[in-house]
C-alpha cells in the first residue's frame, strides 16, 4: 500500500517531489560550503570545494529518481508513448508487421483454443481427474476393445477396492410416441449411480436413485438439456410429464444441466430396469451378453496405477473362474484409462500436429518481422547515434527498441484474437468428429493468457534478435551515420539468415501439406468395392411393441415389396448396416466369435472372430458388390425353414481358408448348435471407410423372426425426390413406423473422408500462409538490398552493365538464399514428417515426388518475389544514384 502511494506520488505529484529533492540537495551543498568556510576557506573557495565534493547535481538527482519504483513505470510509459509515435510515423512498416503477426498469432490462438478445450481443459465434472473408463480386450484374438456384460460389471463393481463406484452405460433407440407421430429418441440406458459417479447434479427434479433400477420399478426418464430445450421448448413444468415409450407410460423426473455429455450425446436417460433387452433375465444371466460401457471414479487418494493393479487382480480371478469364456489364448485383459484421455484419444495426434504447424507459421512470421525491424533499424542508425551522443545509455536504447517490438507484437496479438473466432467455428466442427469435447472449445481466459504470452514472447524474440546479434552497433553507429550505405556485414548476414529460416519453416510446412494432399488424393482413388452412386439409405424403426419379432419380420417384406413399386427405384434391400455408415466408422468392425465345422480349436489357439452383417436377398445386387465365387443369396435363403447360409468376403476367405475352398464349409456362431453353410465369396468392400483396409466379413441371410433396420435403395437418379416418396410409402404402410437418417451412400462416403479432407485443408492453408509470409520476406530483403546498393548499381549501369545483368544480380542473391532455405527445410522436413505417418494413406512420410516438387514450387515463388525489386534496380538512374550522399 505504502509502495503504491509512493509510486503515485512520484508519478503524479512530480512537481513537489522535484522541489523537495532540489531543496534537500541544496541544503547539503550549503552546509558543506559553510563547513568549508568554518575551516578557514574563502567563500569562493568554500563554494567551489563543496561543488566538487557534492558532484554533478543533475546526475545526483537522476540517481535519486532512479531509486524510485515509479521511475521504472515512468520510463516504461515514456517508451510506450515514444514507441507508439514512432510506429505511427511509419504506418507501412507497422501495418505489415502487425498483419504478419496477426496471421501467425491468430492461427496459434485458434488452434490453441482447440487443443486447450479438448486436450487440456479439466472435465466439467466434479473432480473430473478421478473419472476412469474401463475397457476389456483380448489382444491375442485381435479384439482391442469389447463391451461389458452384466455379470462382468457386477464382478468389477463389487470386488474392487479402488473405485468409489462403477457405472454402466449403453445406448438404444426408442420411439417416443406423440399424438400421431413416432419419434426416435437417442436413449442412454444407465445404472442408477451413473450421474453420481460422474458428479452431475440435475437442473430440474432429480437424478436416478437405487429404487428406480429395481426390477419392475417405475418407468422414469431424465431429459438432456439440449432435448428439453429443442423438443420440449424448455417447459419449466416438465418434471412429472408422462410420455409413451416401449408401450409404457414413462414419467420425467429430471432435466440435466447444459454440460457436454459423455460418452455420447443422448436425448433422454433411463435406468437399466426400463430397457427391455438389458432387463431380461436371460441377458442378465449371460456372461457373454456384452453391450455396456463402464465408467468408474477413483477413491480419493488412489491413483490410476493402483486402480489398474486392483482391477487386473479381479480380471485374473474371473479368467480363472471361467476358463471357457476368457480363453487363456485370447489374452483377456481389463484396462482403465483416464476419462479425459480416453475421450480425446482420436483427436490428439491431429491437434498436436496442427499446433506444431501453426508454431512454424508463427516462427516464419517472427523471422519476417525481425527482418522488417532490422531494416528499419538501419534507417534509425543516425537517430540512435544522436541519442546515444546525448547520453542515452545502451540499455535504455535497447529497452526502447524492445518496447517497440513488444508493442507491435501485442498489436498483432489483438488483431489475431479478432481473427481467431473466424477460424474457430470451422475448427470446432472439425473437432466434433473425434470427440464430444468439441462443445467445450472456446476462447476464454486461459486461451487469452496463452495468446498474450505468445505475443509478448514473440515481440521479445524478434525485437531482441536484431539488437543482440549486432553487438557493438553503438560504436559503428557513429561511423555509419557519416558513411551511409555500407551496411555492417554482421547485420546483412543476420538478414540473410532470417530469410533462410523463413524459407526453411515454409518448406517444412509445404512438405507436410504436400504429403497430406498426396495421401488424400490416394484415398479418393480407392475403389470402395461397390458402386455408391444413386444409393439411398435410411433407418426404419417400428415400435416394439406394438410390433413383435414375428410381425416385424413380415414388415421387412412388406416394406421392400411396397418400395419396389415407387417410380424410379431400381432395386432395394435391407441390412443391419451399410458401407460408410457413420456409426460404423466410429465404432469399427464388430468381433463376433464363430467356429468352422470340422476344425476343432487346439488348446492355446485364440478365438476366431469376424464382423457380421445380416441382409435380405438382393443386397449384393442392389449395392453392386460382386460375388466372386459361388452364389448370392436367393429369396429362398431368407425363408425361416431354409438351411442356414452365409457369404464371406475375400479377406476372410484369404485369412481363414488359405489354400482351401471355403464354399461348402460350415460355420456356427453359437458353439455348434446351429450351422450355416458358406455358399459364396463376395468381393471386399471398404465398409469402414476408403482409408481402412477391408476387415473379414461374414454376411448372413435374414432368416426366421427379427428385424433389420437399414433400407438400401438403388434409385433412378433423383435420390432426394425418391427418398421422399419412399418415406411417404412407408408412412402409408404404417404411420407409426419412423424413418430417419436418410442419406445417400455417396454422401456418407464423402463424410467418411471429412477428417483427412479437413486436416489436408488446414495444413494447406497454413503452408500457404507461411509461403506468403516468406515470399514477402524475400521480396522485402531484396528491395532493401537494392536500395542499399543504389550507388553500386548506379556505377555498374554507368559503366555499361546491361539491365539483364543487374536483374540477374538481384535474382541470384535471392535465389541463393532461397536455395539455402530449401536445403535446410527439406532436411528438417524429412525428419519431422515421420510424425504424420499415422495420418497418411498409401504415402511414405518421405515421399520422393512431394519432396521433389516443393523446391520447384518454392523457387518459382522466390523468383517472382525477387523480380519486383530486381525491376526496381534497373530503373535506377545512374546520375541520381551517384549524386546521392
Amino acid at each position, binding site marked *: 500500500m505504502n509502495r503504491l502511494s*509512493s509510486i503515485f506520488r512520484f508519478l503524479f505529484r512530480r512537481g513537489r517531489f522535484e522541489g*523537495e529533492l532540489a531543496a534537500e540537495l541544496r*541544503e*547539503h551543498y550549503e552546509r558543506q560550503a559553510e563547513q568549508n568556510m568554518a575551516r578557514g576557506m574563502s567563500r569562493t573557495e568554500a563554494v567551489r570545494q563543496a561543488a566538487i*565534493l557534492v*558532484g554533478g547535481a543533475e*546526475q545526483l538527482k537522476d540517481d535519486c529518481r532512479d*531509486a*524510485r*519504483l515509479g521511475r521504472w513505470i515512468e520510463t516504461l510509459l515514456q517508451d510506450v508513448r515514444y514507441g507508439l509515435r514512432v510506429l505511427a510515423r511509419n504506418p507501412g512498416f507497422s501495418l505489415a508487421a502487425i498483419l504478419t503477426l496477426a496471421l501467425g498469432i491468430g492461427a496459434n490462438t485458434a488452434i490453441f483454443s482447440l487443443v486447450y478445450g479438448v486436450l487440456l481443459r479439466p472435465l466439467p465434472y466434479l473432480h473430473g481427474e478421478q473419472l476412469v473408463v474401463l475397457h476389456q480386450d483380448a489382444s491375442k484374438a485381435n479384439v482391442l476393445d469389447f463391451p461389458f456384460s452384466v455379470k462382468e460389471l457386477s464382478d468389477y463393481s463389487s470386488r474392487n477396492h479402488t473405485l468409489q463406484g462403477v457405472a454402466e452405460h449403453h445406448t438404444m433407440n426408442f420411439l417416443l410416441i406423440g399424438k400421431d407421430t413416432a419419434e426416435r429418441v437417442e436413449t442412454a440406458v444407465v445404472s442408477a449411480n451413473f450421474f453420481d459417479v460422474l458428479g452431475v447434479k440435475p437442473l430440474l427434479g432429480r437424478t436416478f436413485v437405487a429404487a428406480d433400477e429395481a426390477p419392475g420399478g417405475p418407468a422414469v426418464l431424465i431429459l438432456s438439456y439440449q432435448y428439453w430445450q429443442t423438443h420440449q421448448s424448455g417447459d419449466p413444468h416438465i418434471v412429472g410429464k408422462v410420455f409413451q415409450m416401449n408401450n409404457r407410460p414413462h414419467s420425467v423426473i429430471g432435466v440435466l444441466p447444459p454440460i457436454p455429455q459423455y460418452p455420447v450425446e443422448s436425448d433422454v436417460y433411463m435406468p437399466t430396469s426400463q430397457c427391455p433387452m438389458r432387463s431380461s433375465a436371460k441377458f442378465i444371466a449371460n456372461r457373454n451378453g456384452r453391450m455396456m460401457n463402464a465408467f468408474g471414479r477413483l477413491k480419493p487418494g488412489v491413483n490410476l496405477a493402483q486402480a489398474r493393479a486392483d482391477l487386473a487382480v479381479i480380471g485374473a480371478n474371473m479368467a480363472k473362474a471361467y476358463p471357457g469364456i476368457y480363453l487363456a489364448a485370447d489374452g483377456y485383459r481389463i484396462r482403465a484409462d483416464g476419462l479425459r484421455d480416453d475421450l480425446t484419444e482420436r483427436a490428439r495426434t491431429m491437434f498436436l500436429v496442427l499446433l506444431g504447424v501453426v508454431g512454424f507459421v508463427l516462427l516464419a512470421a517472427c523471422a519476417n518481422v525481425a527482418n522488417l525491424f532490422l531494416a528499419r533499424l538501419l534507417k534509425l542508425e543516425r537517430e540512435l547515434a544522436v541519442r546515444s551522443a546525448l547520453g542515452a545509455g545502451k540499455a535504455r536504447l535497447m529497452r526502447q527498441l524492445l518496447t517497440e517490438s513488444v508493442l507491435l507484437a501485442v498489436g498483432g496479438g489483438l488483431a489475431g484474437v479478432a481473427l481467431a473466432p473466424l477460424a474457430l467455428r470451422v475448427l470446432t466442427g472439425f473437432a466434433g468428429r473425434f470427440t464430444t469435447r468439441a462443445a467445450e472449445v472456446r476462447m476464454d481466459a486461459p486461451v487469452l493468457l496463452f495468446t498474450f504470452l505468445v505475443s509478448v514472447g514473440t515481440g521479445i524474440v524478434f525485437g531482441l534478435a536484431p539488437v543482440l546479434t549486432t553487438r557493438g552497433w553503438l560504436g559503428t553507429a557513429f561511423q555509419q551515420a557519416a558513411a551511409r550505405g555500407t551496411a555492417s556485414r554482421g547485420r546483412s548476414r543476420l538478414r540473410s539468415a532470417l530469410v533462410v529460416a523463413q524459407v526453411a519453416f515454409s518448406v517444412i510446412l509445404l512438405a507436410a501439406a504436400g504429403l497430406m494432399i498426396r495421401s488424400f488424393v490416394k484415398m479418393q482413388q480407392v475403389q470402395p468395392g461397390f458402386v455408391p452412386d444413386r444409393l439411398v439409405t435410411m433407418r426404419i424403426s417400428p415400435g416394439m411393441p406394438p410390433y413383435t419379432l414375428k410381425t416385424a419380420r413380415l414388415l421387412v417384406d412388406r416394406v421392400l415389396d411396397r418400395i419396389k413399386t415407387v417410380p424410379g427405384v431400381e432395386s432395394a434391400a435391407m441390412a443391419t448396416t451399410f458401407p460408410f455408415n457413420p456409426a460404423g466408422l466410429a465404432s469399427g468392425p464388430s468381433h463376433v466369435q464363430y467356429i468352422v465345422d470340422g476344425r476343432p480349436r487346439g488348446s492355446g489357439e485364440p478365438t476366431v472372430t469376424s464382423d457380421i452383417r445380416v441382409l435380405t436377398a438382393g443386397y449384393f445386387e442392389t449395392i453392386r458388390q460382386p460375388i466372386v465365387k459361388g452364389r448370392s443369396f436367393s429369396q429362398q435363403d431368407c425363408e425361416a425353414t431354409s438351411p442356414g447360409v452365409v457369404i464371406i468376403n475375400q479377406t476372410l476367405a484369404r485369412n481363414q481358408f488359405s489354400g482351401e475352398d471355403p464354399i461348402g464349409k460350415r460355420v456356427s456362431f453359437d458353439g455348434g448348435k446351429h450351422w450355416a453353410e458358406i455358399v459364396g465369396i463376395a468381393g471386399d468392400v471398404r465398409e469402414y471407410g476408403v482409408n481402412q483396409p477391408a476387415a473379414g466379413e461374414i454376411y448372413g441371410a435374414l432368416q426366421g423372426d427379427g428385424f433389420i433396420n437399414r433400407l438400401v435403395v438403388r434409385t433412378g437418379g433423383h435420390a432426394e425426390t425418391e427418398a421422399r416418396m419412399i418415406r411417404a410409402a412407408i408412412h402409408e404402410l404404417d404411420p407409426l413406423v419412423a424413418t430417419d437418417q436418410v442419406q445417400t451412400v455417396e454422401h456418407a462416403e464423402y463424410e467418411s473422408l471429412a477428417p483427412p479432407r479437413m486436416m489436408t485443408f488446414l495444413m494447406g492453408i497454413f503452408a500457404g500462409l507461411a509461403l506468403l509470409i516468406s515470399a514477402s520476406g524475400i521480396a522485402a530483403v531484396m528491395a532493401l538490398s537494392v536500395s542499399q546498393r543504389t550507388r553500386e548499381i548506379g556505377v555498374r549501369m554507368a559503366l555499361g552493365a546491361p539491365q539483364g545483368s543487374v536483374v540477374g544480380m538481384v535474382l541470384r542473391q535471392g535465389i541463393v538464399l532461397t536455395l539455402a532455405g530449401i536445403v535446410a527445410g527439406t532436411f528438417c522436413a524429412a525428419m519431422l514428417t515421420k510424425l504424420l505417418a499415422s495420418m497418411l494413406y498409401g504415402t511414405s512420410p518421405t515421399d520422393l515426388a512431394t519432396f521433389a516438387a516443393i523446391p520447384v514450387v518454392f523457387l518459382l515463388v522466390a523468383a517472382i518475389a525477387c523480380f519486383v525489386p530486381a525491376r526496381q534496380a534497373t530503373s535506377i538512374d545512374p546520375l541520381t544514384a551517384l549524386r546521392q550522399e
Partner: protein
Amino acid sequence: MAKSKADLLQGTLDLLILKTLELEPMHGWGVTQRIQQVSESVLQVNQGSLYPALHRLEERGWIRAFWGSSENNRQARFYELTARGRKQLVAEKESWLRLSGAVARIVGT
C-alpha cells in the same frame, strides 16, 4: 580526499544509514557527519551514494521522510526509521556481525 579510505561493501551503506537513524531522526547532512564522526573519519560517505540510498530505503518503506527545522532553524528533510526499518536493522546487523566476525577470524590468524 579521505586519508585512509575504506571502500564500503555492497549493502553496508544501508546498514550504516539505518543504524545512524536508530537513535534519532536526522537529515542527510547529519547522517554523513555522524558516520564520519563515529568512525573517526575512517568512513566518509559520498553524497553521490548517500542520497540515492536514502531514497531507495524510503521506497522500500524502511525509513520515512518529513520536513522539520534543524538545529540552526533551517528547514530540512529529516529521515526516521519505520517499524519495518527497525526489523530490517536487526536482521542486517546480525548478518554483518556474522560476516565481519568470520572475516576477522580469517584475517586474525
